[in-house]
C-alpha cells in the first residue's frame, strides 16, 4: 500500500537469512523495487493534480544548471575525439584523408559519447541531489507529512523529477552534440589545418539524422534511469545523515553502471540507420 515503504516487499523469511542466496534475492528485490516505482510513476503520470510548479523547478535544476558541466565535458570530449581521429586518419590512411574524420567524429559523439557523458554527468550532479533531497525529506518525516496533507509522494516527488529528466536529458544531449562536434571541427580545421569545406561536406554527406535521433532516444532512457534510481534511493533512506550519504553514493554508482550497461543493449537494439 505505501509504495515508499519498500520493506513491505521483503518477506520475513528473508530478513534473517545470511547466505549466498541473499545476494541473488537482494538483486531481484532491488530490480523489483525500481520496477514497482516505474509502474507507480507511469500510473501517476496521468492523474491530477499535476505538480506544474515543481516540474518547472526541476526543468531548471536538471537542464539549465547542468549546462556548464555538459559544456565542458562535451567540448573536451569533442576535442580529444577530434585529436585521435586526426591521428588515426593521418597515420593509417594518409595525409589528406583527415577530412573524413568529420562524419566519424559526429557519428561517435552523437550516438555514443555525448549521451553517455551527459548521462554520467547528470547522474553525478542531479541523481545524487535527488537522492539527498528526498532522503533528507524521508528521515525528517516530510514524506509522511506530504501523505498526511493529501499529497501522494509519488505524484508530488517522483513524477515531476522523472518527467524533467526525461525531457531535459535529450535537450542536454542535443546541446552537447553541437558543442562536441564543434570541438572536433575546431581541433581538425583550426588547429591541424584540415580543409574546412571538405570536412563539412563529408560530415553532411555521411551523417544521418537518425544518428542524432538514436542518441536522443538513449538520453531520454538515461534520464528516466537517473531520476528513478535517485528517487528510489531517496525514498528508502534510513538512519540519519549516514543514510543520506549512502543513498547519494549508491545513486551515482548504480545509475552510472546501469547507464553503461543499458547503453550497450540500446546500441544493439536500435538500428544502425533507417
Amino acid at each position, binding site marked *: 500500500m505505501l509504495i515508499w515503504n519498500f520493506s513491505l516487499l521483503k518477506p520475513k523469511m528473508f530478513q534473517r537469512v545470511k547466505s549466498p542466496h541473499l545476494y541473488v534475492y537482494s538483486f531481484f528485490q532491488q530490480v523489483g523495487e525500481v520496477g514497482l516505482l516505474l509502474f507507480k510513476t507511469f500510473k501517476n503520470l496521468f492523474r491530477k493534480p499535476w505538480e506544474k510548479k515543481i516540474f518547472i523547478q526541476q526543468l531548471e535544476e536538471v537542464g539549465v544548471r547542468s549546462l556548464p558541466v555538459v559544456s565542458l565535458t562535451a567540448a573536451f570530449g569533442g576535442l580529444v575525439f577530434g585529436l585521435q581521429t586526426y591521428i588515426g586518419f593521418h597515420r593509417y590512411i594518409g595525409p589528406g584523408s583527415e577530412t573524413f574524420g568529420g562524419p566519424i567524429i559526429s557519428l561517435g559523439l552523437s550516438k555514443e559519447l555525448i549521451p553517455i557523458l551527459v548521462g554520467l554527468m547528470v547522474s553525478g550532479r542531479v541523481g545524487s541531489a535527488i537522492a539527498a533531497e528526498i532522503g533528507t525529506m524521508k528521515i525528517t*518525516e516530510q514524506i*509522511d*507529512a506530504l*501523505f*498526511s*496533507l*493529501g499529497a*501522494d509522494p509519488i505524484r508530488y516527488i517522483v513524477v515531476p523529477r522523472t518527467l524533467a529528466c526525461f525531457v531535459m536529458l535529450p535537450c542536454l544531449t542535443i546541446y552537447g552534440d553541437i558543442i562536441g562536434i564543434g570541438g572536433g571541427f575546431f581541433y581538425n580545421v583550426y588547429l591541424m589545418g584540415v580543409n574546412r569545406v571538405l570536412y563539412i561536406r563529408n560530415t553532411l554527406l555521411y551523417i544521418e539524422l537518425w544518428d542524432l535521433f538514436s542518441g536522443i532516444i538513449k538520453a531520454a532512457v538515461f534520464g528516466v534511469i537517473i531520476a528513478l534510481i535517485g528517487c528510489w534511493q531517496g525514498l528508502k533512506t534510513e538512519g540519519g545523515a549516514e543514510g543520506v550519504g549512502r543513498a547519494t553514493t549508491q545513486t551515482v554508482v548504480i545509475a552510472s553502471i546501469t547507464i553503461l550497461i543499458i547503453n550497450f543493449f540500446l546500441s544493439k537494439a536500435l538500428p544502425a540507420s533507417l
Partner: protein
Amino acid sequence: MIRVVNLHKAFGQNKVLRGINLSLKSGEILVVIGQSGSGKSVLIKHMIGLLKPDKGEIYVDGVEITCLKDEDLHKITRRFGLLFQGTALFDSMTVAQNVSFGLERYTDFSKEKIQELVEENLDLVGLKGIGNLMPYELSGGMKKRVGLARAIAYRPDIILYDEPSTGIDPIRADAINDLIIRMKNELNVSTVIITHDIASAYKVADRIAMLYGGKIIEEGTPEEIEKSKNPVIQQFVRGRAKGPIENW
C-alpha cells in the same frame, strides 16, 4: 469515530505493539501516555495510514482502513490533521506555504482566502506575521507551533498531536492546551494526543490511556488515572525513577 482492534506491529525483532485495543469517540480528547519508545507515535501513524499493521484492524467511522488502496485511504486521511513530533515542516517552503499546503489540496478556496486563513492560523498559535520566514530561521518551539498551524489550518475532523508541548515554554504550552480545548468545544474536533506532560494530559483529556509493554494497560478519566492502583501508572504519573518500570 476511530476504533483500533488487536493492533500488532513489529520492526524486525522488536515487537512494539502487542495487541492494542482503543477507541476514540466523536468530539472526545483522548490522551495516550507512556514511556519514550513505547510505541505511541507508531500507534498514531497507524491511525492515519502511514504504517501498516502486522495484524489487527483500524476502523474510521466503520471503514477498515488498513486494507484500503492509496486513493481510498487519501479520502479518509483528508479528515485527519497530524502534528508530527519532529514538526516535519517542508524545509524548501516558507512558513506560509507550509501552512497553506493542506488548504490548497483539500479546499477550493481562492488564493486570497487561503492567505487570510494562513494568517488567521498563525495568529492562533501566536506567530502572526512570520509567513515569509523559512523553517530554518525559526526556533524549535516556533517550528512546533507552525506545525500545529499546518495541522489545524484546513479544520480536520480528527487531529492527532504527537507531543504538542515538547520544546515549548510552559506559558505557550498552556496556550496550546487551551487551543486544543477550544477546537473541541467550537468545532467538535476529535483529538488524540501523545504526551509525556502529565499536567497537560490532566487539563485537556476526556480520557487517558496508558501504553506499556505494547498494550493499553489502563484507560479512564483523568481522575480515574490519578487514583489508579496500578503501580506502573502510579510510577509514571508521579514521575518516580523507582518502581515496577525498570526498563528506562
